[in-house]
């Protein structure tokens, strides 16, 4: 970038002109990304005006949703989006990082490459297919085995009480976990593989076991990349629409129980936008899009802060 060495001989002038052009072109490309983001915010802000003016901040704290009486509260959707995404990460982070450690540190390279190829294929499956799989296999499994088991063992917690529908927040979290796994595994594996061999050798030379080397040297070294992988997964979980709406039950209420049906921002927009009549109704759905945008920015910001904090700790130790 700025540190590139320039050689200012006349023979290089033509090349420099080319450099200038290339620089301008990529600058325009980069600027267009920023412009698109700004335009998205502007359109969401502008089109949500009817609902922002009518409902104000109470929109974010009310949980009443009744299009007939034009009562709109966004809280159940914000709640559902956060809960399903957190559930998804709770399941997929240990599984994903564990798989990535196996693939990069333990498995022979050839098997690792083959498996990674298969895992990356999972990322290319359309979400409606995941939704169908969930309806026909995951939902009965959850209803007949997983939810009754959880209720029996952990039923004293309000999280695991009530009717086991099979459809609900928990099932949505599980299918989201499956969908975020390929991202987490694949990106984590890449960053683990990028750890220099010398780091491992040094740790082994100091008398660490293989596991100590992996857990205390390799994983902390690749921490940034793994964090990145997790937040890529989170981004997918927050915005996922089709698979979630097919298994979450789409109920506009906040329940303590994870078995109960819920709803997410993306799901309600997909469900109601086509038939949303009236300026306020449509505005409300667009405002929910704005909220999702802000939620993503906040969570990404938190991710940055976390990375900064942990990097400092890491460098101190080094």
């Amino acid at each position, binding site marked *: 970038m700025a540190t590139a060495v320039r050689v200012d001989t006349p023979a290089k002038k033509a090349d420099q002109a080319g450099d200038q052009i290339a620089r301008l072109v990529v600058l325009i490309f980069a600027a267009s990304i920023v412009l698109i983001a700004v335009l998205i915010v502007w359109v969401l802000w502008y089109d949500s005006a009817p609902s922002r003016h009518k409902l104000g901040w109470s929109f974010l704290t009310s949980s*009443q*949703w*009744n*299009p*007939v*009486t034009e*009562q709109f509260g966004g809280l159940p959707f914000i709640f559902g989006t956060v809960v399903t995404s957190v559930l998804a990460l709770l399941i997929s982070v240990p599984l994903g990082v564990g798989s990535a450690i196996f693939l990069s540190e333990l498995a022979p390279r050839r098997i690792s490459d083959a498996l990674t190829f298969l895992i990356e294929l999972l990322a290319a499956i359309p979400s409606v297919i995941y939704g169908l799989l969930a*309806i*026909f296999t995951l*939902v*009965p499994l959850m*209803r007949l085995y997983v939810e009754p088991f959880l209720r029996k063992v952990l039923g004293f917690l309000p999280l695991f009480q009530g*009717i086991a*529908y*099979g*459809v609900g927040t928990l099932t949505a979290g599980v299918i989201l976990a499956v969908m975020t796994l390929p991202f987490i595994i694949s990106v984590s594996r890449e960053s683990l593989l990028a750890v220099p061999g010398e780091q491992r050798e040094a740790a082994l030379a100091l008398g660490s076991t293989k596991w100590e080397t992996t857990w205390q040297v390799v994983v902390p070294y690749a921490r940034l990349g793994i964090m990145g992988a997790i937040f890529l997964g989170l981004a997918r979980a927050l915005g996922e629409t089709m698979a979630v*709406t*097919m298994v979450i*039950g*789409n*109920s*506009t*209420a906040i329940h303590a129980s994870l078995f109960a*049906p819920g709803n997410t921002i993306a*799901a309600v927009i*997909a*469900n*109601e936008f*086509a*038939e*949303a*009549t009236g300026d306020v109704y449509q505005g409300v759905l667009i405002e929910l899009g704005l909220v999702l945008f802000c939620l993503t920015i906040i969570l990404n910001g938190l991710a940055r802060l976390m990375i900064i904090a942990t990097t400092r700790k890491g460098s101190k130790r080094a």
Partner: protein
Amino acid sequence: MKKSLLTLSALLLASAGMIFSQQINGAGATFPMPIYQKWFQDYNKAHPSVQINYGGGGSGAGISQLTNGTVDFGASDMPMKDDQIAKMKVKPLHFPTVMGAVVLTYNLAGVTSELKFTPETIAGIFMGSIKKWDDPKLAKDNPGVKFPGEEIIPVHRSDASGTTFVFTDYIAKVSPEFKSKVGADTKVAWPAEGLNGQGNPGVAGLVKQTPNSIGYVELIYAIQNKMSYGHVKNSAGTWVKPSLESVTEAASGAAKNMPADFRVSITNAPGKNAYPISSFTWLLIPSQIEDGAKGKIIVEFLKWMLADGQKETTALAYAPLPKEVVAKEEKQIAEIKVGGK
């Protein structure tokens, strides 16, 4: 996404056909989409110079696109409200095209016979006052059926839809409590919380997957998928099995009191064998069409739809319009003013 793809394909179609044919574009209700597409295809075969494109998108989309003037005609499963009409530059005319009905479908282990529902039990289940399947009210209407002592799980539509409007419109008519607390619309806040599925397939899928559940779907969808559905007691006190005949009967029952603009709900219609949860679906046509060529085609198409088009309905499991309604609609065609004046 879907919408933009539709517009894109409409644009492609338009640019390909512009040279030799007159394009008419419409959008709206998805419930009558299969029959509309068949009609427009057949009409195109009979009149190769006319190409009518129908984009679907839902009743709400049909109304708003017609209001914005992005389409030549709209289609809706619910009549337009007064304030919606007030927003339009040109007053729209409502033309009923075919009829549909909403049926109750359920999943009860061990129950194979077709269950019977009264207006009271339907309202009770969806208001949440009838909570369990072994409720004495249900048992009284269904002698011989062994109901499980399990909680009833209602399944609704998660997307705003004409189906929900017809269903809630019916319950609001038979239950004053439902009318005041919930109301009739394309999407409502259901007092009895349950599960919600997207589209008819979503509701049917959830009902199939969830024991002790009950949901509502379009009659056509239930017929095509060979689902079992409930009989309903109508306003004359007869148990009626939903079918194309009992739906058409509901329309003839309502035809006597049909308002001139056809904005009428025919749920809970009089008539001995009328199925009470029936409805029209409408084409929304501007009462003044400035483009003379387009206007002429739309008028011709409406005439064709009321005559030849009606013969194609039953093959696709839509109930045809009763004769009385067809006659009234033919008169309304004269109200369309073609060309700028």
